């Protein structure tokens, strides 16, 4: 009796949150899913007629003249670039983030707060502005090329802007703090005496890193990788500004369908694909990284 009313109360109390969650999170997803199976409107929007064209166009294209079906190479290369750049961003932010987080976590407690504060300063400025700043650094007449020419290392400016490298540099810069912070939290909890225990038991520096440090700070590595990989995969501003028009990533491609391309069902299908890719990578990633965990 009391248990039942308690359960009922619980539901009543949490109903505002549940309704909000349902509307704000599931609602848009549902709309996107529905749009992906409707027919494309003449100029924009959708016609309320069931159609598989949206999903078909994710991977295939039909020739307008002879109606032959072929793989949509352009789409595939955009997917591949997105995945490739996101994985590279995750790996590079990890390579830079680990020493950075280690450095901060080994400072005296007083100066740690200052270092963490410095790490978060870029968040104070708008993403667009930060991205334009990067552009200013890497463009042909920018700081980097001017400096390299001045030192005599190069005679011609290197074309970095509007390449995949530019996009990569921008994403690494933007997402590095998202890697550093969870890594720092994990290293902060790490018991440094375990390093001595490792050396004492005949482990080399490399073996201590691989066999002791990395497995113990793994939760931080997983969190940081997820925090970097997911927004990288859906990045919009960075590839738009630094990649120019041609080095599109999924985010730009989706925007194109809702804007100029005026193909809402394809845009909706692409968004759903992005969501699924993220979910599947999350599952695979957490599975793989927890494989040899005795806590299982």
């Amino acid at each position, binding site marked *: 009796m009391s248990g039942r009313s308690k359960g009922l109360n619980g539901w009543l109390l949490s109903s505002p949150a549940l309704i909000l969650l349902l509307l704000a999170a599931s609602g848009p997803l549902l709309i996107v899913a529905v749009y992906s199976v409707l027919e494309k409107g003449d100029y924009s929007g959708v016609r309320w007629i069931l159609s598989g064209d949206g999903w078909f166009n994710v991977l295939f294209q039909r020739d307008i003249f002879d109606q032959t079906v072929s793989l949509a190479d352009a789409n595939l290369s955009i997917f591949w670039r997105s995945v490739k750049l996101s994985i590279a961003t995750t790996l590079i932010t990890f390579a830079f983030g680990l020493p950075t987080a280690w450095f901060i976590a080994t400072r005296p407690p007083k100066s740690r707060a200052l270092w963490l504060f410095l790490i978060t300063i870029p968040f104070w400025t708008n993403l667009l502005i930060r991205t334009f700043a990067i552009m200013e650094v890497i463009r042909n007449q920018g700081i980097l090329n001017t400096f390299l020419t001045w030192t005599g290392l190069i005679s011609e400016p290197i074309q970095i802007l509007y390449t995949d490298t530019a996009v990569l540099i921008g994403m690494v810069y933007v997402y590095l703090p998202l890697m550093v912070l969870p890594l720092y939290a994990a290293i902060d909890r790490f018991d440094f005496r375990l390093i001595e225990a490792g*050396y004492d038991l005949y482990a080399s520096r490399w073996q201590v890193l691989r066999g002791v440090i990395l497995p*113990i700070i793994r939760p931080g590595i997983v969190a940081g990788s997820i925090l970097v990989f997911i927004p990288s995969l859906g990045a919009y501003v960075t590839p738009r500004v630094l990649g120019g028009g041609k080095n599109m990533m999924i985010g730009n491609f989706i925007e194109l369908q809702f804007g100029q391309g005026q193909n809402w069902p394809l845009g909706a299908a692409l968004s759903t694909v992005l969501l699924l890719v993220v979910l599947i990578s999350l599952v695979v990633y957490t599975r793989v990284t927890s494989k040899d965990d005795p806590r299982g």
Partner: protein
Amino acid sequence: MTKQIAIDARNVGKIYGVGVHAVTALGDVSIAIEQGEFFTLLGPSGCGKTTLLRCIAGFETPTSGSIHLSGRDITYTPPNERPVNTVFQSYALFPHLSVADNIGFGLKMQGKPAKEVKAAVERVLALVKLEDFAKRLPQQLSGGQQQRVALARALAPQPEVLLLDEPLSALDLKLRKEMQSELKRLQTETGITFIFVTHDQEEALTMSDRIAVMSAGELLQVGTPHDIYDRPVNRFVADFIGETNFVEGTVEGSAVRIGTGDLLDVTLDGHSGGVTLAVRPEQVSLRADGSGIAAQIVAATYLGTDTHYTLELGDKSLLVARIQSNSAGGMRVGDAVGLHIDAGAVQVLSA
């Protein structure tokens, strides 16, 4: 047959920091520890015990002097290349590895084949009686069990020397007593040289083959528990090991006249002039008939088997006597008694 020397520290000094912040942790320590010995470093907090141990393990490099292991100079050898293992005070077990993997860690790092590691782990698990816990994680064990895993992990690679830095200090009294005998058994069974750090003098006396008493970065005395207890070289050692009464006196002929005017016929060992006598409470006996040095009982503490009597002598100085409770019959606070000192056992120190 002379014993082989396992660890030979020669004039080891260690200074932390530079300039005004410099701290001398070890002054000039020379010590030769024999193979298969249970050797204890004993001393008050901050005297440099951990520092000496860390120099032997390789975590610190001495600022001066050298350290030799079985005749080989290892002063600058990194810790992972020394056949020396440490049982850390904090245990420092790897939280992500099972008990078995913790114990096998050292052998695995040495590149031993998996089969050999497995066999060694099983053997050591049996040695510390933890066979049923092989699959558990360290945090699923009690403090005493974690302690045993730490011990097993350090023993598994069969080091030449095992270093133990106050390994028992985190355990409660009962477990501590158990682990003391366990440690002693393991040392005898494995024949490995143990260098054990403690600031508990009782622990040092019961477990060690030899003890080194340290103070402020210097070795004061090295010897068997009997040597240290019965023949302390100075007041510090006598005070640190067991309870001691210090009685001032002056040498007169072959005896020492103390403050009360009484003469004590002690073994002088060449001392002359002003001396201090170290008198253990159990070397004092009391006579109800008043013969001997006149004294008055000012306090009595009943400790079960023994009773501690605080006595005031004629010159107002105080002396503690430990008397077996059942032979003390009838002596009360306020009673005047006669006091005898077993002069043959008294140690004479320079004043």
